């Protein structure tokens, strides 16, 4: 009997150890808005994590909805309610900093960047965008480019025009195309794509440095150069279609394919749409160039993950961030997502023709952040800026628009 009791005790102890071992391996909840087309890319990352940490139960808490509109609302409820996810997706830069970092709700990741040696493999301009108040706040997984002008090479040849290099040249080309009967040489879509266009025009007018000064507060929005940018934007709008607000960005891209319009300024997710959905070949079926006035500048936006204060499974979340930032992680994720790696040492053989050219630019261009996609402006600015653009579209009063943008910047604490 004694023996069996000892056996029982041993068994119990073993069972307890196993149980506590399992709880130490723990759980990890990943909060993102990657569903549908982007789901497989996220799955590839999770698979990689599972290989490294097989004992951890991964909870993929995806809230679907384009650009995270629904996910962000859910996230706010959870953060305010005191149950943050272990790690959540956010557009890198001010969208995170202006919302969560200023509210003191995020952990500083500069220690992680140091131990993993990431400061060496990420471009310096990118790390600057991720930092504020002496900390680095999120780990970027991928990079998209926002300043790309898409066109249909065969159609441009037929019309006898080339992709313009500056906005003035663009206006000349636009006039030429109008004379040839193209009603709307430029196609744009719903509200946010108009802001997307505004951003490209502004950077093309102010230059990369001028754009950065605008967000650091060195240049005011009421500066004559900004007013000039708005004026140019107004003249560019005269080249665009009138039914914009009824079109999604995909429908707008369709007009490039069918030759109704000549140019479209859109981020490089358009490349995925052209190749995967429209079955077009890069360079022949669709062509691209940096948007006018921005060659040598890479306007970037990135998806990234951060670590909220009070995360339940902090150690697992840190391991997740390590996987995200690793070369293997980025090369598993990005070819599937249609973006490029934020790291400069990624394996280019895995990427598409377009992505290869973007990755080459990523390594040598000047990098600045996108406003409409959350890199340089906080949510409070971005969300209200749409109304400023709409008002400008209706009134075409450049000075009034610049004044309104200036007030908005003051309210959102830009340059403070």
């Amino acid at each position, binding site marked *: 009997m004694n023996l069996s009791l000892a056996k029982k005790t041993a068994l119990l102890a073993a069972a307890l150890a196993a149980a506590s071992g399992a709880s130490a391996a723990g759980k990890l909840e990943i909060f993102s808005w990657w569903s549908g087309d982007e789901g497989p890319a996220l799955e590839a990352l999770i698979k990689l994590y599972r290989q490294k940490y097989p004992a951890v139960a991964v909870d993929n808490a995806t809230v679907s909805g384009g650009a995270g*509109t629904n996910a*962000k*609302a859910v996230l*706010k409820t959870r*953060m*305010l309610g005191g149950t943050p996810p272990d790690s959540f997706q956010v557009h890198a830069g001010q969208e995170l900093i*202006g*919302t*969560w970092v*200023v*509210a*003191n*709700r995020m952990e500083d990741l500069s220690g992680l960047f140091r131990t993993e040696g990431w400061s060496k493999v990420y471009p310096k301009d990118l790390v600057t965008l991720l930092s504020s108040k002496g900390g680095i706040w999120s780990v970027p997984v991928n990079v998209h480019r926002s300043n790309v002008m898409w066109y249909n090479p065969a159609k441009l040849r037929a019309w006898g025009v080339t992709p313009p290099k500056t906005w003035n040249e663009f206006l000349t080309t636009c006039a030429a195309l109008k004379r040839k009967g193209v009603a709307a040489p430029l196609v744009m879509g*719903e*509200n*946010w794509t108009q802001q997307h266009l505004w951003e490209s025009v502004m950077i093309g007018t102010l230059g990369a440095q001028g754009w950065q000064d605008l967000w650091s507060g060195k240049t005011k929005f009421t500066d004559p150069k900004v007013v000039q940018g708005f004026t140019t934007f107004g003249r560019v709008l005269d080249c665009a279609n*009138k*039914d*914009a*607000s*009824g*079109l999604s960005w995909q429908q707008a891209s369709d007009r490039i394919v069918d030759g109704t319009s000549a140019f479209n300024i859109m981020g490089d997710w358009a490349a995925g749409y052209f190749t995967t959905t429209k079955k077009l070949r890069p360079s022949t079926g669709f062509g691209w160039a940096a948007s006018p006035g921005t060659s040598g500048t890479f306007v970037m936006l990135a998806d990234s993950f951060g670590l909220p204060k009070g995360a339940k499974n902090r150690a697992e979340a840190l391991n997740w961030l390590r996987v995200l930032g690793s070369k293997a992680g980025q090369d598993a994720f990005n070819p599937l997502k249609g973006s490029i790696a934020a790291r400069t040492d990624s394996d280019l053989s895995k990427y598409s023709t377009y992505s290869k050219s973007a990755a080459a630019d990523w390594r040598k261009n000047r990098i600045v952040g996108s406003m409409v996609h959350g890199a340089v402006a*906080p*949510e*409070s600015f971005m*969300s*209200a800026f*749409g*109304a400023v653009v*709409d*008002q400008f*579209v*209706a009134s075409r009063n450049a000075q009034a628009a610049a*004044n*309104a943008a200036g*007030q*908005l910047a003051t*309210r*959102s*604490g830009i340059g403070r």
Partner: protein
Amino acid sequence: MKGLSRDRLWSVLVLLPSVLLLAVFVYGFIGRTVAVSLTDWGNDPAQALALNPVIRPVGLANYQELFTGFLQVRFRQELVNTLFFTVFFIAGTLGLGLALALLLDRNPRGEGLWRTIFLFPMSLSFIVTGTIWRWMLQPQGGLNQFPAVLGLPPGRFEWLSSTASIWGLDWNRVPLLTAAVVALALGVVAWRAARAGNRTRTLVAGACALVLLGWAVFVGPNVQLLPAPEVHGFNLALVGIILAAVWQMSGYTMALYLAGLRGIPEELREAARVDGANEVGLYRHVVFPLLSPITLSAMIILGHISLKIFDLVYAMTGPDNTYTSVPALNMYLTSFRQNQFALGAAIGTILLILVAFVIVPYLASAFRREEGHA
């Protein structure tokens, strides 16, 4: 102790949970929203989402910002949008519903089938309606293609994407107009009281009307809400949304009117015919007056739907199209995207007041009627 009989105790016990829940989740939250709208929560991004945010009371500053602030043009346009939407939505729904009911009241063949068909849109949610109509009103497809079927050139109307607007009105004129409209209403009250022979009522209403009119003529023009004129009008893109909303809800008014029409006893109609009324006179003097209570209750239901409409607009033109936006959308965006919780709460409170304008007079009249019966 008659007041605490067993029955009464039971009824109190049974009702208590729902009364408590209502007190907390309806009235408590309304109170909290109003309280938040009087603070600066969210104006400083650093405090908006902090764990223990510092929130200071600021009085009515948020309301002042909404009505006169330079950055809140969108909200003012939304109020104007709501006004036009409500008027056209109610008029369209009542008109179409009544027309359908009158048709069905003539007992056409297959009446049950028609009734189901007309009532069917109501079983859809506004989100579904919005999605269907967005497809139909696409710039190049849908309704604009109708003439093409007959060999005519396709239509050019930009149903949901138009940026044109008509009947523009400077926002600075709003206090003036409000005073004039209220004065006119008071004048009507005074006139009716005079006809009914109620002297004090005539005098009070008349005096108030005169004071307001005086203000509107002499002081009103000098009130400057905004530094520059700001024109708001009826955005033509709303036409598409009104169309979809009327399609969705006119089956409901048809059902109401049909029930009312069937409730009118045949004897009344026969009596009218015997008295020499023709068909038009029959409807004008007998049928329509009997339907007026139905019209009133339909207007209340439709009115509050139109004031708080959100999902239909979200589905048809998206949250960021300022030409078709409504206050409920703005409240959502202000609170959950811009993190301006106090400003969002202020918009919510204004919506509540607008709905109260519609509901309270109805409730008051309903209570009075009940007491009259008791």
